[in-house]
């Protein structure tokens, strides 16, 4: 607990002072919330007509399908990223200098380039022969594959390095070859450490699927863009769609926490420095 590092156990005077601060804080927060609600109310954003689409079966189904699209894009991207990350993560650990060097270059490049740029490029230059919708869908998958793959390459490397040195040394000592040491000894142990980090990467991928809006909306972003055009309910739509993202991500984070407890124990989740958005830690 951070509080214990920062503060001593409070005495009676401090407890009384904290009680006053608490009351002030509660009042301030309530005022803030009340103001936000009043603002929404004054603008007529609570009128039933604006929220009705979200309980209309047809639209609910469309939103559900869009949500599934978003989820499959993220899942496909993470699956692709696993392969990409495995190849280049092991490439970075290779004993051969050129392999290491090329892997390093690829990983650094895709980590530094904004995902949205990858999307624009793949939409116009790679998937330009497809229909707009398919092109946008596969642009998302490809861009997120290479970006998250570059991140996972680092996770793989860190995971393999996190296996105690003695394990590899013992394996070599009993006469295993390099590939055997990697496949039989290091990777199985590393994967266990990496699973939570991989699930957390899903959260990043899921959020980033929305960036395709720059060329064409796919999945939940399509709803975000199209629904307000028919119902003039941009505020409720933004709230509902954001809420869907948040709920999905919280579910994924919960899964990652469970996996962490199950496979790794109480240790900190595997963190890779300088890798874009830090994945959510166990809160």
């Amino acid at each position: 607990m951070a509080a214990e590092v920062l503060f001593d156990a409070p005495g009676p005077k401090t407890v009384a002072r904290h009680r006053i601060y608490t009351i002030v804080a509660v009042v301030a927060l309530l005022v803030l919330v009340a103001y936000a609600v009043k603002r929404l109310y004054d603008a007529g954003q609570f009128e039933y007509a604006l929220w009705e689409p979200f309980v209309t079966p047809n639209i609910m189904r469309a939103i559900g399908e869009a949500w599934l699209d978003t989820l499959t894009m993220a899942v496909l991207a993470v699956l692709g990223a696993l392969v990409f990350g495995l190849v280049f993560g092991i490439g970075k650990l290779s004993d051969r200098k050129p392999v290491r060097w090329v892997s390093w270059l690829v990983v650094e490049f895709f980590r530094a380039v904004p995902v949205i740029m990858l999307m624009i490029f793949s939409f116009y230059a790679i998937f330009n022969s497809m229909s707009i919708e398919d092109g946008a869908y596969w642009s998302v998958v490809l861009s997120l594959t290479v970006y998250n793959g570059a991140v996972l390459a680092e996770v793989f490397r860190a995971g393999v390095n996190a296996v105690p040195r003695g394990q590899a040394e013992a394996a070599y000592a009993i006469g295993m070859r390099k590939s055997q040491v990697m496949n039989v000894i290091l990777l199985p142990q590393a994967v266990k450490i990496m699973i939570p980090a991989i699930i957390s990467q899903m959260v990043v991928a899921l959020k980033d699927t929305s960036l395709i809006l720059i060329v064409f909306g796919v999945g939940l972003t399509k709803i975000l863009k199209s629904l307000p055009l028919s119902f003039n309910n941009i505020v409720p739509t933004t709230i509902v769609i954001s809420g869907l993202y948040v709920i999905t991500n919280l579910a994924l984070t919960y899964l990652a926490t469970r996996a962490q407890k199950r496979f790794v124990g109480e240790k900190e989740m595997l963190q890779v420095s300088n890798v874009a958005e830090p994945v959510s830690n166990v809160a």
Partner: protein
Amino acid sequence: MDAVLESLPDVFKAFGYTVLLFLVSGVFSLIGGTILVAMRVGPISVLDKAAATYVTLVRNTPLLAVFFFFSFAAPKIGINFKWVDVHIGTFDFTSFFSTAVVSLTLYTSTFVCEALRSGVNAVPLGQAEAARAIGLPFTGVMSQVVLPQAFRASVPPVASALIALLKNTSVAAVFGVIEATAQMKVMTNNNADERWGIFIAFAIGYVVLVELVSLVAGTFERRWRIA
């Protein structure tokens, strides 16, 4: 590449906007993150819970949705940035720019908060206990023992958050700021035969900026490291 070389001033101006977005939102995010982390680790549990809720909500929302809210939804309830209209040199700071800064700041603050908090959590409890045991007052414990260590430990994660911010400035391209990514999109559409060259040129621009930020962060990390 010809297309890039011909309109080099436009390209540089676009990257100028990227850097400006990064610098302005970076400063505000550091301030916002510090306020949030103060609430998070402070003794008032209500503030702790409020900050935690905010951080959890915003971290799990796509940045695009935050931008979308401030660009299209917020004006409907009377929140807009039309009053911002500053021009410095050839750069225009209008409502598009300030909407981007607000969105980026609110989003990045949460990551900065978590980065700083991990720094505080990295300080072993025994450090504070030992400091109290030798009779240091609260201010002494903080300024001499806890905060210097916490600060040092949070440099790498804060750097990660700032690098993410630098790349996230590209989302502003969707919402009307002509920064590097938007410029790339325009050029890609106008020069269909040079898409690869244009992409690589802009990608190198971003790589250089990212490496620059890592370099600065690395320098500070080494300078402040002890032993």
